[in-house]
Structure formats: structure tokens, C-alpha cells
């Protein structure tokens, strides 16, 4: 490491300097490690596979402990996820392990929606983390991270190929979580069949574009072992918590009439490889990938959905404040608009009804006028008739009077006549 080679004193140039002695910052990784150990680690495993395929047994075998679990029945209505968290300790390392079981997977007659509860669960964990990250007062450093770091997909040991349910499910999950496919109950497949089966599975995954987790090969310390393990995927595993005496050792194994399948025997199954890769070598990388890739993808999609952008129409970068302020303005404007709309609707309604009522009033008024006129007519008729009658009466009275006046004179004549 030579001294710097720039002439001008510039703030942006990074100079390489050599040290004249032991400064001591080579303890930085140790400081970091000691802090992590004090904080404790957290790891979340999702096991996806049919009922009875050996998920719980494998977990017990992997972590050398009896996790509590009830055997699931085959008659679940749908798929539901059952997370369980355990505190484990090995030497001075504390691990908060969460195992999520998919209960009822593969049991229904119609399995079209089987993947949905799984995807929803994974998304919910991302969402919870995102919400915490977006809070104003947040505490990320002691947040219990529940995001799924690894999905172990259990493939049934048919020996032929993947089931369509497997392909569909893995395709839906590969952009959300690290997937390691494993062949369960591998003690039912012979070596040659297994070899063919593995090749078939991998080619099917490739041809369907399913992205499974690749053990990282960029770190020289582990690249060799990782790349060789990549070639053994999918791991064919056997799980067992029972112990069998083989020779002078007691090992975990499955006892058959024809022999003993030893879990930790690498020529019997790939259990040891799985444990190495999953726990001993790449646990931290799985956590990192979940955070840096899958979570970031989720976060990006979610924020874009909510209308956040990194640059405004002029391609100037937005600051967070501007973004939030813009959002807020939009939001308030939206609310105001809604309020206006509602008021307007009411004003219209009122106008309409008013017009209606006015119309009715007018009709009523008209009716009233009409009746009035009718009444006037009738009254007039009555008056006419009355006048008629009166006239007749008058005429009659006059006639009567005339006759009576006449008859008053008449009787004299009669008398006169009589006298004569």
C-alpha cells in the first residue's frame, strides 16, 4: 500500500495510507460479533409440504430437539400456517428460531388456492417490518424480525418428477423467499433412481423458471464448499429422532428389517449436507439475502403502489420530505374534493326535490282554481234558476192579482143579473 498519488488536496479522493504500527482496528469484526452475540440471533424457517411428509421430524432432527407439534389431520378445509418460536442456545450463541408449518397443504381436492395463505403470510411479515421501518419513532434494533429467511420445500419421493402443485407453489414463492427444495423420505428411493430424480427435478425447475436459492460462491472462504453443494441440490433427506445402535455407536436412524438408515451417514442421505449448508455455513447469508433482496423487492413494489417515486417528472431526486409533503397535499386535496362532491350532491338533491314539490304545489293551486271556477258556474246556475222561479212567481202573482181584481167585479154583475 503506497502513499497517495494525487497532487491536489481533494476531499473526495480516498487515499490509501500505510500504518506505522499496530493501531488495533482489526478488532472491529470482533466488536461487531460480540455485539451480535449479545443481541442474539433470529432465524425463521418455513416448511412447505404435504401432510405427513416429514416436516416436523426433519426439524426435530436438524435442531436436535423435540419441538412440540400435533400431527395434523388430512381433513383441513384449507391451508393455514402455524408459526412457533423457540429459544435455543448453543455454546454462547442464542438463537430465536421460528418454525412455520403449513398445515393442510396438498390435502384439498381443489388446490388452486393452496399457495395463497403462504404468500400472504410471507407478505404480512414483510409488511410488519416495513411498517416498523416507516414509523416516526421506531426501534429497529430490538425489533423481533419475523421475516421468513428460508423456505424448505418438501418434495414427495415419487421418483418421477415434480407435481404440478409443487411447480405452481414454488413459482409463486421464488420471488419472495429463499427456497431450498428437498426430497423428503429419501429412504424410499434407491441411489440410481435418486440420481435420475434429482436431475429431473432440477431440469423441471429450470425450464419453469423457478429461482431457487444458490449457495453463494463469492466469498473465497466458502465458495468451494458452496459450489460443490449447489451441485447436490435438491438434498435427499431422511429425518429421525430415534436412536439405533450401530456397531458400537448409537446414532439417529430408522430401523428396517433390511437394514438401518443412518441419518448422519452421508452415503445414506444428504442430511448432513443440508445441515452444513443451512445452518453452519450460510445462515447469515440467508438472512442477508432476505433483507437485501426479497424484502427490498417487496418494499419497492409497495412504495411504488402507494405512489412514491424517487424522482419527480423533471428527473430531479426527491427528498423524503418533499415526497411526504407532496403526498400529504395530494391526500388533503383528495379529502377536500370528496367533501365538496358530497355537498354538491346534496345541493342537487335539494334542488330536485324543491322543484318536485313546487310542481305539486302548482298542480294543487290549479286544481283549486278549477274547482273555484266550477263552483262559480254552479252558483251562477243556481242564481239563474232562482231568478227564473222568482220571475215565474212574480208573473203568477200578477196574474192572480189581476184575476182576483176581476172576479171582485164579477160577483156584482151576477147579483145584478139576479136582481133583474
Amino acid at each position, binding site marked *: 500500500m503506497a502513499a497517495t498519488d494525487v497532487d491536489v488536496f481533494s476531499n473526495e479522493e480516498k487515499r490509501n*495510507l500505510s500504518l506505522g504500527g499496530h493501531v488495533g482496528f482489526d478488532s472491529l469484526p470482533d*466488536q461487531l460479533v460480540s455485539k451480535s452475540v449479545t443481541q442474539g440471533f433470529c432465524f425463521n424457517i418455513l416448511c412447505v409440504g404435504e401432510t405427513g411428509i416429514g416436516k416436523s421430524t426433519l426439524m426435530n432432527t436438524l435442531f436436535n430437539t423435540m419441538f412440540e407439534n400435533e400431527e395434523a389431520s388430512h381433513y383441513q378445509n384449507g391451508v393455514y400456517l402455524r408459526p412457533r418460536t423457540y429459544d435455543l442456545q448453543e455454546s454462547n450463541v442464542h438463537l430465536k428460531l421460528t418454525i412455520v408449518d403449513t398445515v393442510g397443504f396438498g390435502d384439498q381436492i381443489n388446490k388452486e388456492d393452496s399457495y395463497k395463505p403462504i404468500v400472504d403470510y410471507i407478505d404480512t411479515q414483510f409488511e410488519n417490518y416495513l411498517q416498523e421501518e416507516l414509523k416516526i419513532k421506531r426501534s429497529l434494533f430490538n425489533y423481533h424480525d419475523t421475516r421468513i429467511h428460508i423456505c424448505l420445500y418438501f418434495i414427495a419421493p415419487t421418483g418421477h418428477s415434480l407435481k404440478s402443485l409443487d411447480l405452481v407453489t414454488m413459482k409463486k414463492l421464488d420471488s419472495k423467499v429463499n427456497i431450498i427444495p428437498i426430497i423428503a423420505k429419501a429412504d424410499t428411493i434407491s441411489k440410481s433412481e435418486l440420481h435420475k430424480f434429482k436431475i429431473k427435478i432440477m431440469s423441471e425447475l429450470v425450464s419453469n423458471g423457478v429461482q431457487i436459492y444458490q449457495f453463494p460462491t463469492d466469498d473465497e472462504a466458502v465458495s468451494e464448499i458452496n459450489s460443490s453443494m449447489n451441485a447436490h441440490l435438491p438434498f435427499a433427506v431422511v429425518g429421525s429422532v430415534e436412536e439405533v445402535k450401530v456397531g458400537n455407536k448409537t446414532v439417529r436412524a430408522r430401523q428396517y428389517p433390511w437394514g438401518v438408515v443412518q441419518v448422519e451417514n452421508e452415503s445414506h442421505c444428504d442430511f448432513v449436507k443440508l445441515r452444513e449448508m443451512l445452518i453452519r455455513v450460510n445462515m447469515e447469508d440467508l438472512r442477508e439475502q432476505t433483507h437485501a433482496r426479497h424484502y427490498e423487492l417487496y418494499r419497492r413494489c409497495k412504495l411504488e403502489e402507494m405512489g412514491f417515486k424517487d424522482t419527480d417528472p423533471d428527473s430531479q431526486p426527491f427528498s423524503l420530505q418533499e415526497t411526504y409533503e407532496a403526498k400529504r397535499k395530494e391526500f388533503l386535496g383528495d379529502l377536500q374534493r370528496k367533501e365538496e362532491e358530497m355537498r354538491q350532491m346534496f345541493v342537487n338533491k335539494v334542488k330536485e326535490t324543491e322543484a318536485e314539490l313546487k310542481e305539486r304545489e302548482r298542480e294543487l293551486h290549479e286544481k283549486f282554481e278549477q274547482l273555484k271556477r266550477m263552483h262559480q258556474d254552479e252558483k251562477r246556475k*243556481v242564481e239563474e234558476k232562482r231568478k227564473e222561479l222568482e220571475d215565474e212567481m212574480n208573473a203568477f202573482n200578477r196574474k192572480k192579482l189581476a184575476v182576483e181584481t176581476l172576479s171582485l167585479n164579477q160577483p156584482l154583475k151576477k147579483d145584478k143579473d139576479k136582481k133583474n
Partner: protein
Amino acid sequence: MIERPDTAVPSIAQRNLEGYVGFANLPNQVYRKSVKRGFEFTLMVVGESGLGKSTLINSLFLTDLYSKDYPGPSQRIKKTVQVEQSKVLIKEGGVQLTLTIVDTPGFGDAVDNSNCWQPVINYIDSKFEDFLNAESRVNRRSMPDNRVHCCLYFIAPSGHGLKPLDIEFMKRLHDKVNVIPLIAKADTLTPEECQLFKKQIMKEIQEHKIKIYEFPDTEDDEDNKLIRKIKEKMPLAVVGSNVVVEVNGKKVRGRQYPWGVAEVENGEHCDFTVLRNMLIRTHMQDLKDVTNNVHYENYRSKKLAAVTCNGVDTTKTKGQLTKSPLAQMEEERREHVMKMKKMEAEMEQVFEMKVKEKKQKLKDSEAELERRHEQMKRNLEAQYKELEEKRRVFEDEKANWEAQQRILEQQKLDASKTMEKNKKKGKIF
């Protein structure tokens, strides 16, 4: 056994492992990855000219960060306070450290030093702002951490106490950065003077409620004892030197005086080794963590609270601050929807009531109209009847009278006929 703190998840069961699992290797994995990533650290040095800041940095990192080609802050004469950074990459034992030294030439050198801390505050805030923006982007790439992790504040070795500028500066910066006060050029103080000076300084620091960086307690009791010892030595009195001198056959960094050599790395001469151990060998990571978890979060929550409280009723409770601004908007939206619903219901109610009233009025009018119409009809009918009656009476009367007249006429006729007959008969003379 270490007690685990209580967690929020209720059902966590303890399990004992019955054999080898392998996650005890996790720390090694973390170690490996961190070495691959490399480390970053930003150190800020503040103090008046001539207090030995550059020399101390060179001594701390055993390198010529400041040299003739790259002069230290005091060599660069500035009229106003500047904030300048130098980035260097140093490697040791396979570990890469990108060290950024931020210095403030011109600090405290003017006659009027009011607000000379402002450029410093602005610098720290701008780094926080950069990080906040990087963290809040939709597309996040690698987020380089340029935030200031530690600020070494150099106190002039007057032997009496803190100067007003010292107090003012530390008070303004203790909420933004880890402040570690140092007594500079400690080789001008005898051990007793130094003790008194330290006591005085600590007293004043406590009086003014200045929060300097505190060493966290660890779970290890041995470590805690050491930490307590260090705490008693605060503030650390340091001596720096660019020169290597020979003392008793050993080559050491020191300052050669006619009366002896003040050795930089001698614990009885000064606290330099304590500073170096603490700053670099044991607490560098913690300084970064405190910056990230405390100072940065403070800045962030203040910044975001300002954004969300814009135009919102500020009398709302503090409980709001635990939500993200988006969640808050969601909640406001829900509140608004409810308010609108209520408003709609109310308006609807008023509307219905008014309509009902009007309709009722119309109905009443209509009924009234009907009633009057009925009445008038009956009136007319009565009149008709009356008229009919009258006519009938009249007709009767008329008929009677006419009948009477006819009888009379008949009688007359008969009478006159009889008379005629009688006349004819000669009876009548």
C-alpha cells in the same frame, strides 16, 4: 447463564439441544461477512488552533494523515469556520477501514466566535439528511454511512475549567453526536493539576447537563471493572507526537524535553492509550451503534414529525408519533370517512325532515281544499234543494189556484149557461 430480556412474542419456549446443531458458527459467519464488506468510521475533531489535533490523529492511527502535503486544520488559516473531510483507506490484519476525518479549521479562532458551532451542526445534519434520503428511496442500493460517529472535543489545558465556548459547543452538539471531551497537550499539567482539572471539568459538565458519550456496561464483570476505571479518568488527558524518540533502548513516540521525554503511550504520562483502546479497539462499533440508534433516530423522528404535523392540528396527542406518516394519513383518511358519513347522515336527516314538513303542508292544503270543495258542494246542493222545494210549493200553489180558477170558470160557465137557458125559457124578464 445470561438472562434473556422479555420479548413481545408470548409463546417462546426454551429448548435444550441434545447434540450438535451448528448455529454456534453464526458469529463466524458474521465475522467473515463483515470483513468482506469492510468497515467505515467518521471521526470529527474540534478545537482551537494549536491544541495538537492533527498530531493526535496521526498518533492514534499511526499514520501520516496530516503531513506537509496534507496540512492539518491549524495550518490552514481560515477566516471563517470551515468543515472539511479527508477520507483514507487503511488496512490491518485483513480488515479494511475507510476512515473519514472531519476537521474544523477556524473553530474558536476568531475574535467573535458566536455561532462558530453552526457550520459543524449543519455538517452533521446534512450527513443525517443524506442518510435519511438514501434510506427512504424507493430503490435502495448500498447506503454508505457518512454520518459522524464520534466528535473529539479538545479542551485547552488551562487547568481552571471549561471556557464558555466549550460549554456552548458541547451543549449544542451532545444531542447530535457522541461527544468525547479531551484535555489537549496534557504534558503541561502535573498529575495533581490534571486531577483537579478533570474534576472541575466533570463538575461543570454535570452542572450544564451535557451528555458526553457514555461507555455502556457489558455483561462481563471484568470488563465492567475496566470500564469503571476509564470512567473515572474522564475527560481523558492526551499527548500526541509525530516523532519517535529512543527511551531506554526502546523506540517510542514521545516529546523530547530537556527534562525528559513525555511518552505518548505511557499510561503514567497521559491517557493516550486509554483513548486509543477505547476509541479504536473496544468501542468503535458501539460509537457507530449509538449514532445509528440514538442520534440518527432522534434526527429522523424530528424531521418526519415536522412533515406530518404540517397543516394538521398540533394539539393531537403524542401517541401519533409512533406511526409512520403513511399510517397516519391512513388513519386520518379513515377518520375523515367517518366524519363524512356522519355529516352525510345528518344532512340526510335534515333533508328528510324538511321534505316531510313540506309534504305534510301540501297534504294539509290539499285536505283543506277538499274540505272546502265539499262544503261548497253541500252548500250548493242545499240551495238547490231549497229552490226545488220552493218551486214545488209554488207549482202546487199555482196548480191549486189554476184548478180553483178552472172550477170557478166552470161554475161561471155553468151559471151563465143556466142563465142563458133560463133566459131562453123566458123565465128571466
